[in-house]
């Protein structure tokens, strides 16, 4: 039963690492900010990567990526210096998966969808503006 105790401890730890998010849906595409973060919807196809908005206020960002292509895809957020800020892999065709990143600071970023999970991907600029409130 010590195993169970350990497992429970691991679960508590993992939950402790979570935050509150995902409640501020922005249906009209203008990113609504708040402590709960900003939700950006992304549609990835075999040859396109469409974001609901290309800018968001600093803080927690949640990219909801839907794969409408024929191959598995990945979604990345890069900082200006090509560092990976966040990524979500294994988005199978027909699936929607979410990339949640805490505390994204103000600055210039690049988004990328990678149909087929290889190469530089379909890239676009993404701006993170000063936090509101």
């Amino acid at each position: 039963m010590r195993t169970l105790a350990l497992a429970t401890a691991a679960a508590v730890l993992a939950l402790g690492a979570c935050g509150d998010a995902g409640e501020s849906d922005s249906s009209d595409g203008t990113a609504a900010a708040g402590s709960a973060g900003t939700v950006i919807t992304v549609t990835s196809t075999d040859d396109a990567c469409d974001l609901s908005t290309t800018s968001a206020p600093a803080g927690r960002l949640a990219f909801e990526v839907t794969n409408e292509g024929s191959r598995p895809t990945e979604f990345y957020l890069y900082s200006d210096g090509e560092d990976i800020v966040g990524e979500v892999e294994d988005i199978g065709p027909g699936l929607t998966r979410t990339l949640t990143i805490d505390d994204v600071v103000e600055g210039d970023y690049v988004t990328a969808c990678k149909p087929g999970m290889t190469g530089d991907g379909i890239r676009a600029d993404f701006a993170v503006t000063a936090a509101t409130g």
Partner: protein
Amino acid sequence: MFVSNALIGLREGLEAALVVVILLAFLVKTDRRWGIRYVWLGVGTAVVLSVLLGAVLTFGTRQLSFEAQEVIGGTASIIAVAFVTVMVFWMRSAARSISGELKGRLDRALDLGPLAVALVGFLGVGREGLETAIFFYATAQAAGAGNNVPLLGWAVGIGTAVLLGYLIYKGALQINLARFFRWTGVALIFVAAGILSYGIHDLQEAAILPGLDTLAFDVSHVIDPSAWYAVVLKGIFNFTPATTVLQAVAWVLYVGTVLYFFLRPAKAPAAPVAESQAPQSARQPAA
């Protein structure tokens, strides 16, 4: 849509099944059947925990950040490597004691207890469990929205992995004991090196370890990462077409060191018994 989701299920299933299958075959072959239920206890705990945690993260208001997810996967993988390494040497000492080279004393010293056996099962499945559960819920949500092809594909992929695991288990039981220890030991070392490399990559993605963009090699233009053979390579050995320098160095160091100690002949005075020693010592300088 069906095939690519099935391949993702196959890869995740293989990653989880291999260590467990080898551990089970070892316990059966060496008359340590007491350990089997502890393996399943560990595996069961990992599955239940992953399913619950995955549900909380998918349907609740809490979400796991990218960094936290990578840290959990990376840390669990590296801990799993530590346990698998102990298991490899446990198998080695068991092989030695069976072939009469060593008496029971050392074997007992190296014998893993129920907790350690359960932990190997837990980590073997749990390190990828959360990722797999979250993927499962994504396919379930697609099915709820009227598209059940991804869910069917995923289920067939996982089912195939379980079937392959079962066949590997059956095959392992067929081969004779000396060969079994040699080859499953060597195979486990390569599997563990892959898990180590995977864990390092996760921690690099979480920016805990440096060098994510310093690649040792990138053959993704030759090996399509979504092709079935790339999926199988990744599922078994965690081979990734684009590998960082830190991953490659850790992999080489791990395989070199562990393989050397694994294949090194025992220093036991009662050496002449072992008819299998000659090829081992011949291979040793190359290790």
